[in-house]
Each structure stands twice: as C-alpha cells, then as structure tokens.
C-alpha cells in the first residue's frame, strides 16, 4: 500500500496503521502460501479431522520452510557481497 503521493504521510496515525496492516498482510500471504505447499506434501487422504501426527508434520513444514527461506537469503547476501568486492578490485 503506497500512499506517499497522496499527502497521507502527513498523518502519522495513518502511516502507522498502513505499516501495521502491511505487516499483517505479509503474514497472511505467507500463511496462505505455506498452507498450500505443506498441504501438497501431506494430504493425500483427509480424515475426519487433522490428527496429531499430521499437525506435527504441518508445524515441521512451516519451520523448515522459514529455515529454507532464511538459508537462501543468507546465501544470496554472501554471493552479493563477494560479487561487490570482486567488481571493486576490478575497477582499481
């Protein structure tokens, strides 16, 4: 949600509201995404309810998904940093 061109940033209350709602939205989006991904892994035959084993699977799935995301981010940052120092040494 970008309201910078509308003079709305003059209102700090609105600005804070937008930040909070954006954060909530990012959370929701990730829940949607992880539910879908984890569902694919576990739900061949649904039962009358989600048994505790499947629940644990979903929890593990969420944790590993986030771990994967962080892992990738860290690796990309490392790669970027080494690229930067390479190009710096080239320009000297």
């Amino acid at each position: 949600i970008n309201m910078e061109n509308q003079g709305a940033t003059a209102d700090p209350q609105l600005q804070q509201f937008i930040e909070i709602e954006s954060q909530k939205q990012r959370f929701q989006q990730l829940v949607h995404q992880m539910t879908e991904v984890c569902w694919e892994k576990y739900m061949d035959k649904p039962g009358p309810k989600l048994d505790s084993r499947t629940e644990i699977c979903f929890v593990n799935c969420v944790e590993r998904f986030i771990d994967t995301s962080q892992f990738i981010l860290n690796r990309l940052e490392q790669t970027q940093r080494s690229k930067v120092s390479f190009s710096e040494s080239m320009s000297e």
Partner: protein
Amino acid sequence: MDGFGSDFSLGAGSGKMDTGTIMEQVKVQIAVANAQELLQRMTDKCFKKCIGKPGGTLDNSEQKCIFMFMDRYMDAWNTVSRAYNSRLQRERARI
C-alpha cells in the same frame, strides 16, 4: 514527480477524508482480499482431490469430499498460522 499528489488533496482543508474512514475501508479491502485468496486456493485443492473426471453435476460423494477437504484445509490453515506466529515470536525474542 508529483503529478498525482498535486491534484489529490486527501488531507487539505475542509474536504479532508476522515482518517478513521480510510482505515476502515482499507481493513475491509484487506479482509476481502484475504477471503478471496483463501477461496481460490481451497477451491483449487478441493477440486484437484475430489473431482476426478468432471461429470454433468457434482455427485454426492464429490460433495462430501469437498466438505471434508474444506474442513481439513481450514484446520491446516489454522495450524500453519499458529506455527508461523510461534516462530515469529521466537525470532523476536532472540533479537
């Protein structure tokens, strides 16, 4: 580049749109978007799992399957939401 901003007086003068109104409208839009997202993904999953060869109507077993998958999908969604929330709390506690 302020072409948009110069004509759009959101906060100027007596024509001010109430901040509370804006906030309410945004909340509604977000809620609607979330519901649509959920509906779309749920429909996709239920359809894939329950409807083998699409016939002329949804027969009884297909309908039962859809209902069951809907419930399971909501259970899964809630489980994921809780798990993600816990993870976020833990991450914040570390900082």
